[in-house]
Structures are given as C-alpha cells and as structure tokens.
C-alpha cells in the first residue's frame, strides 16, 4: 500500500520540486553576474526606498539582497515556505479523499485492511514527500551557495528546515478538512485558500504593530524565519506548537475517518 502511494504521488512531487530547483538554479546562475556589476549598490539603495512595512514583510530590513544567501533570506525562503505550504496543503486535501473521488474506495474498503492502516500509510507517504522536498531543496541550495560564496552554514541549515514547521501543520489541517468532503474538486480550492490565505495573513502580521495580531491566525508564524535570521536559532516553542497542531489535526483525521460514510 505504501509502495503504491509513493508511486502514484511521485509525479506531482517531482513537478513541484523541479519547479523550485529550476528557480534556484536560475538564481545561482544569474547572481554572480549581478553581484559583480555596479548595479548591486544601486539595488540596495533602491530597496531602501520601499516602505518599512514592505521591507519587513519580505525580511529585507534584516537581510541584504546583495548576495545569493541574502536573496535566499529575503525572497528565496519565502518562496520555499509558500510553495512547500501549497504542496503540503494539496497533498493533504487529496491523498485520502482521492479514493472516494475516484470511486476506488469501494474496492479498497473491501480489502482486508483497516481504515486506520490505510490512513497511516497515506500519511507516512505524504510526510516522506514533504520532508524529502525540503531536504532536496536544502541540499541543492547548500551546494549552490558553497559554489557561489562564503555564508553562515549554521544559519543556512536552520533556515532550510523551517519550512517543515509550516508545511506539516498545513498538511494536517487539510487532510482533516478533507474528511468533511467526498470530492477532491470541492477541497482543492479550500486547500489553496488555506495555504495562500495563511501566507497573506503572515505578510499582514509582519507589516506593523496594528496588524501583528494576524500572526495568531497563520501557520507561517511557526516557520519563524525572522527569528532564525536575527538570532540564528529556532524558537523551540514554535517547534512544539507546530508538532502539537500537526498531531491534533492528524488525531482528528483518524477519529473522523474511522466513522466517515464512504460514498
């Protein structure tokens, strides 16, 4: 069962990962020429012209885009957060519900396997792919940075694992939401909405003190990139919160799925 799940979900994993790898490849190929040009000083000056709220939203107030690592700390990791979040959300909304949507559930249900076991193997498959995506991206960028410039390795390693703390809760929330539906097309929009809406709230929360309270309504708070950039450490509270939220929604999914009417 796990083998089959890994096989059928491999294609989408490959596409999503390749898109990000391609993007970073372009960055590593283009950045050396940008850094060497005189325009880089102008870019730093140009960035300073942006409103403070916007600089904060993209971490540009605490990192300079004048190096490849600087770009990663500002736009790069935000893109990783967003894309791994969207991937985890879609995977969550799809991986179990697909059987109902494709009507293969009637066959699967007749096999001598418990619902709990079906769910466990699907969740393991999803976690393998989410973690793999983050590891592959981390490794790729690490090699890219090694070849490009000198950088803070500890800070980089911590930064590259932070997307896990938002992707896992997003997966768990979406798999839980999917137990309320019978069709994937109904939950696809919801999963995108949760991932993108959550990101939008995060941007708002970063902007100023008035909108700061939005941080309590977005899972991206758990991937605390700013803290890693400033303090070169991961806030253990965020790690615990991320694991607790993931666990609560996964347990909720097991409870819901055990009694769900599969139609």
């Amino acid at each position, binding site marked *: *069962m796990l083998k*089959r799940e890994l096989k*059928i979900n491999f294609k989408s994993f490959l596409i999503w990962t390749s898109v990000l790898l391609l993007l970073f490849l372009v960055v590593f190929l283009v950045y050396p020429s940008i850094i060497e040009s005189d325009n880089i000083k102008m870019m730093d000056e140009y960035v300073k012209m942006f409103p403070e709220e916007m600089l904060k939203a993209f971490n540009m107030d605490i990192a300079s885009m004048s190096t490849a690592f600087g770009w990663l700390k500002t736009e790069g990791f935000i893109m990783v957060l967003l894309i791994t979040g969207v991937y985890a959300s879609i995977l969550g909304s799809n991986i179990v519900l697909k059987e109902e949507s*494709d*009507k*293969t*559930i*009637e*066959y699967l*249900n*007749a*096999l*001598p*396997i*418990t*619902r*709990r076991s079906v769910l466990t193997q699907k969740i393991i498959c999803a976690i393998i792919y989410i973690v793999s995506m983050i590891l592959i991206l981390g490794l790729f960028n690490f090699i890219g940075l090694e070849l490009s410039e000198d950088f803070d390795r500890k800070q980089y390693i911590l930064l590259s694992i932070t997307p896990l703390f938002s992707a896992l809760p997003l997966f768990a929330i979406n798999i839980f939401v999917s137990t309320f539906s019978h069709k994937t097309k109904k939950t696809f929009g919801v999963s995108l909405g949760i991932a993108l809406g959550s990101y939008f709230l995060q941007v708002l929360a970063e902007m100023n003190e008035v909108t700061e309270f939005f941080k309590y309504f977005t899972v991206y708070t758990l991937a605390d990139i700013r803290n890693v950039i400033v303090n070169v450490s991961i806030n253990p509270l965020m790690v615990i919160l991320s694991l607790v939220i993931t666990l609560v929604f996964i347990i909720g999914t097991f409870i819901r799925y055990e*009694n769900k*009417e*599969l*139609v």
Partner: protein
Amino acid sequence: MKKDDTILEIINLKKYYGKIRGVEDVSLKLHSGEVYGFIGPNGAGKSTTIRTLMNLINKTSGKIIINGKESNKNDLELKELIGYLPSEIYLYDDLTVKEMLDFHQSFYKRNLKNRRNELVKLLKLDESKKVEDLSLGNSKKLGIILALMHEPKILILDEPTSGLDPIMQNIFYNLLLEEKKKGTTIIYSTHILSEVSKICDRIGIIKDGKIIKEDTVENITKNSVTYLTIDSDEINKIKNEIDLKIIYEQNNIIKFMNNLSPNELMEKISKYKINKLLIEEVSIEDLFMEYYE
C-alpha cells in the same frame, strides 16, 4: 438446510441519511451454500443494505452478524470472508491487470496464485492490458476475479452480469454454481429477473426499505398467479363475482391476474356462459412487477 448453517444474519437493519430513508427494516438470514436473490426497484434499499453490510456506511440501528460475530469494520478475519463485486467497478487506472491482481494479492497472507490463474484463464482476461484500457465487460471480469480469487465464504454481487456478453454470462453462472457447491454463500442483487430463477435458491424482494416478500424460487413460482382471459356475454357479472385485478379489458373480453386455485376458479365461473377461456403462466418478470407496483 440446517439452522446452524447460518453464515450471515441481518437483524432489523435501519439506515437513515439524515431524514431520508435508506433502509427501514431489513432482516435476512443466509445459510452456507445458499444463493439469495436480492431484488427490488431502484431506490428500494438494495445498495444501502449492501453498502451497510460492507461497512462503507454506518447503520442507524440493527445488527449484522457474519460467521457468528457482529460485523466490525476493523475485523480483518471477517473481511477476508467476503468477496465483493460492486455494480460499477472503479479500479486503479494506472495499473495493468497483472499489477492490479498483484496489488490485490499482497493483502492476503495465503497464496492465491492457483485460484487467480484459474480465474484469469476461465474468464480469458489479458493480464498485460492497462486497467484504463479495459472495456466494460473486461472490467467486470477483472472485478469478478478480484472478488473470487481469495476464495471467500460469502460473495456479495451487485448487478454482476451487466456488461458481460451471453457466453461470458453462462461461464459466470457456472462459476457461481461451482462456488455454491463449495459452500459459498452468495447474495445476488440484480434487476435481470431471469437470472434469479436460473441461479437463486431464495429470493427477497425489497420495497421502500423493507423486505416485502421472501421465499424460495420454487415456492414463488409454484404458488404464483396466472393470467386468466375470459370472453363472455356475461362479463360484467363475472367481473363482480371473481373480483380480481384487471390487466386488460375490451368489449366482452377481460384479462385478469388470477391467484385462485383451479377449483375455486371453476366454482366461481362455471355458472356463467363462457365463450372462450385462456389460462397463461405469469413470467417471473410479471410477478415481480406486481410486487414493485
């Protein structure tokens, strides 16, 4: 059939989808080696009963006892006892027939290879084809193999012959009769009523979520009604006298649905002048139509 042969029992099964009735009150008792025809019009509750039996949906009340144990969706031993063929088969399109059979086999600890090969050969299925490329008939064949290859004690078949050509239908009927000989209990849900008299031992007719008639095929056909056509100048008097359901009426000719014994009938109509009298057997289809209506 011995009483202790009971392998499947449904007791007062009730299923409501919110306020909508799925099944009102269904009770069945099936014995080893019995083929039970489960008949009823659309929306009567056949599929709901089967889906509840398969634990796809949760019952509102009632009990389902399989092989002496109350049905439980997590009881893998009970699941291994059942082979299920849904009316519409949806399998994994990305796999070939061989991969699909291998996948199925991987869930059973026993070696299913011999039975699998026998069935593939009997139903003439090409294992190299992709599931998505199979015709309706071939999908059905694959569904039949998947339902039978683990040699279940109970077979639940929902409209099993739809999509099969007449030759394959006959092979399938023979296959079921072999299963029956081995002691497999079969629930056979169908709309094709001629199949019922061909392979079923007992029939349950479900209507509005309740079993309205249950008997052996033999008894149902033996005690069945006949059509009675009378041509008489005193047709109105006869109509009042025998008070039967009229199927057709024109001038002096009336066709009745007759459930009287021959003696009762003769006694009632002998006092009238009859020009013509025709007694015909009612087909099993007509009989069920009576219950359906």
